[in-house]
């Protein structure tokens, strides 16, 4: 490890290892559906004033209320970027009602609550975020993009997770 000569003796806490598992780090380094969506019908910005993180959610929703396309843009910590990236992977093709239900399930997941509302395949996809529940101070990071998504569904200009 060229960045440090003294790394050999390190150990890692299990809950930390789960929080920063490879899937999370991969999404934070290489976020999916990243960048503004030119042809969007809905957009909202989420802002966490405590840490300054900002994320914009863009969606193209058709007249039947189905999400045709989705993307996000912004800066944030590994947790908030990975959460946004994982979210965009699930939203395409969903109805507005399905997206809201998905959000409810995700919030329960990161708070360590009952997730029976989540479809098994969705839960499997989002399970990598479950480690956040061991870090109450970081739940806001994980939910920022989801609150922005909900605000976008409601055509709101911005959402804050405080």
């Amino acid at each position, binding site marked *: *490890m*060229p*960045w440090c000569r003294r790394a050999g003796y*390190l150990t*890692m806490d299990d*809950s930390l290892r789960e*929080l920063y598992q490879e899937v999370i780090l991969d999404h934070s380094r290489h976020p999916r559906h990243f960048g503004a969506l030119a042809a969007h019908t809905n957009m909202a910005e989420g802002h966490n004033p405590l840490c*300054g993180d900002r994320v914009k959610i863009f969606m193209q929703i058709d007249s039947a209320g189905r999400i045709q396309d989705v993307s996000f843009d912004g800066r944030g910590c590994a947790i908030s970027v990975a959460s946004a990236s994982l979210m965009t992977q699930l939203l395409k093709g969903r109805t507005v009602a399905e997206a809201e239900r998905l959000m409810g399930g995700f919030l329960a997941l990161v708070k360590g609550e009952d997730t029976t509302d989540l479809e098994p395949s969705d839960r499997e996809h989002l399970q990598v975020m479950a480690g956040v529940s061991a870090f109450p101070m970081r739940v806001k990071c994980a939910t920022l993009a989801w609150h922005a998504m909900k605000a976008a569904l409601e055509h709101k200009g911005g959402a804050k997770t405080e």
Partner: protein
Amino acid sequence: MIPQPVSKDPVYDAAALRRDFPILATRVNGKPLVYLDNAASAQKPAPVIDAVEKFVTREYANVHRGVHFLSSAATEAYESARDRVRRFLNAAHHDEIVFTRGGTEAINMVASSWLAPRIQPGDEIVLSVMEHHSNIVPWHFLRERQGAVLKWVDVSGYGELDPGDIARALSPRTKLVAITHMSNVLGTETNLREIVRLAHSKGVAVLADGCQAAVHAQVDVQELDVDFYAITGHKLYGPTGIGALYGKRDHLKAMRPWLGGGEMIREVTQESITYADPPMRFEAGTPPIIQAVGLAAALDYIDTVGRERISLHEHALTAAATRKLKELNGIRIIGEAPAKGPIISFEATGIHPHDLATILDSEGVAVRGGHHCAQPLMRRFDVMGTARASFALYNTAEEVDALIHAVVQARRVFDNG
């Protein structure tokens, strides 16, 4: 100042001092607590805890009211605390010290009660880009409400503030220079004496935010000749909810009241009101009596250990931590002014400060990650936030190593997954 290595100080024994702070025995995530968030708030030594307990157990009552025994004892304790603050800052007069809830209230008081009545639209307030929000927002109020103009003075890439830049920002319309004495993010200690001299030569008053400098530097308000100086108790190893405003006697006398209520009046009738003299004029309602007693004990504690010795110790820790952080790859220190307190802001490439702080916490190391209530400064250095390690009188060289170890751990998490 060239820091002396701690090991060459035969008397300074941080390990012994740590035993005065019960909370430092805490374990976090199974590891010893390494508390390096002192710039946010310092921990409390037993003499402060004991002084508060003794006061509420034996001497407590409201102040300046009753004639009974306890009221007299409490009033004596409260006014002694004021005199303790006066001595700490070397103010000339007892009535130049106003107790507040903290540094924020002290600055707001000057904005609202001293400066607001003197502001015409277009009048200017000079401040630096490295101010804490508590020394920004009260002046924004005057911009929003009265048309004041904020004139921002930049710092160098190393975080140095050139007093000449302050002088150049002064104009015939400048009504106040509001400046930190030590940045809570960069650690930069400003040349307040020179800033005051330059401002006074143009007839401009200076308010200094001393919330950090009072903890780490030597403060003598008479020598500085500063007009207003704000401090907070909880960073000085004292309780929360107490701070003080030093104001030159003539300024305080010319200042309108702050909050209205009991204690701050001379006489109230149905038609009119006359106000008490300073400092009572600015202390409406029951003041933070218990907290004032705790603060006085904290200042006693600091002076018993010795401010200069504390400063040398903290400088040595800062120098060691800075050197060791620089040995790691991908670490950028933000703020390297030659005159600098024990506050280190740094960035780890590719790691958000909150992720860094979470990983450090898992190692028991408490640092602050974020914008540190200094968003204009974050923008100036083009960062979303920083991690900040800040040292106090009880920190040790071993804790510097724990910090480095934890930062290495964070790099490992992010580089290797």
